[in-house]
């Protein structure tokens, strides 16, 4: 039955309409949770506001459990959904650059667009920065192409990689998330609240 687009239950144009509606939900939730504020986002790295950790892990777990149950009920074919590929070096290096960008700029791409939509001028500068970054990558691509495509492992799941079932993997992720929530709550109580 699902994904609807893969089973031709909706047309390509309807799919794009859904993209727009899904985007509205995405932007609305990000803004409502406070992700339009860089000082709130960065709070996770200093322990005074761990909203990022809570929203991110709850969303990840909800999506993960939803997909696993939908698959169990036969509502979605997980072989037809996009699984991120793994290029070992490029993925790790990209993550390091993104982490640095996060702590320096205070946003990530989705949150910067969301913050720009309510008028945060710093967010607009962040979005401009992303454009520049993409263009820099394009200019240096011939130099880094080898590195970018090195150590391609296909699109493995962490559960396959570790040789455990998806269900056990999900349980481990949930346990890790609960531990992270607990740490987050402790840090928030200890740190002096930051007014912003």
């Amino acid at each position: 039955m699902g994904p609807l687009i893969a089973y031709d239950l909706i047309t390509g144009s309807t799919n794009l309409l859904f993209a727009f509606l899904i985007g509205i939900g995405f932007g609305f939730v990000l803004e409502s949770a406070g992700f339009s504020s860089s000082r709130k986002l960065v709070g996770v790295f200093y322990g005074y506001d761990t909203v990022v950790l809570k929203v991110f892990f709850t969303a990840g777990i909800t999506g993960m459990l939803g997909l696993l149950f939908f698959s169990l009920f036969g509502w979605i074919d997980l072989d037809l959904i996009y699984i991120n590929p793994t290029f070992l070096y490029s993925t790790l290096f990209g993550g390091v650059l993104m982490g640095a960008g996060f702590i320096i700029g205070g946003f990530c791409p989705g949150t910067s667009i969301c913050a720009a939509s309510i008028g945060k001028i710093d967010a607009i500068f962040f979005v401009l920065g992303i454009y520049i970054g993409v263009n820099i990558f394009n200019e240096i691509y011939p130099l880094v192409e080898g590195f970018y495509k090195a150590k391609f492992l296909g699109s493995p799941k962490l559960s396959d990689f570790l040789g455990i079932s998806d269900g056990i993997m999900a349980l481990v992720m949930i346990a890790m998330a609960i531990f992270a929530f607990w740490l987050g709550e402790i840090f928030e109580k200890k740190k002096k609240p930051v007014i912003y």
Partner: protein
Amino acid sequence: MEDNKVIKRSEKYMNPYLAGVFLGLVLLSAYFISGRGLGASGAIKSTTVSLVKTIAPAHAEKAPYYKEYLETHPGNPLNSWLVYQILGVIVGGFLSGALAGRLKFKVEHSPNITSKKRLILALAGGILFGLGAQFGRGCTSGSALCGMAVLSLGGIMSMMAIFGTGFGLAYFFRKFWVNI
């Protein structure tokens, strides 16, 4: 009095766990309907390619990274799933901000730094993130969040690298954010 009311209203954010469940359901519906997850940096890449294609078509043809993109994504780069989704994000963010009384042009920064410094840092952070999202083949949403939901090895590695680096560097950039 009126001022206090405004501040109080703008502080009223959704419970983070509830917001997380909603975000997870949005993500689930993206997979169920379109067979793919959410994303942000991909839409910026599409608009960049489209912009370069319009302003300097010869350059877009020559530049190998954009050429690869145009070959694997036939048609107008703006007519893509992620671009429509990001237009939705702008609308959704605006609606939520409007309902909560948070629509305001401003540069948000810690009292330790000036607006100008904040803007330079935001631009620099954006450049790093834009570069990193190319190497990572997706950003916090497309790679880390979606990767976690589908248990992708690459996505979970990306998540750990992003947050690990953030925590690792937080000490060095503390003066930009907190009073220490």
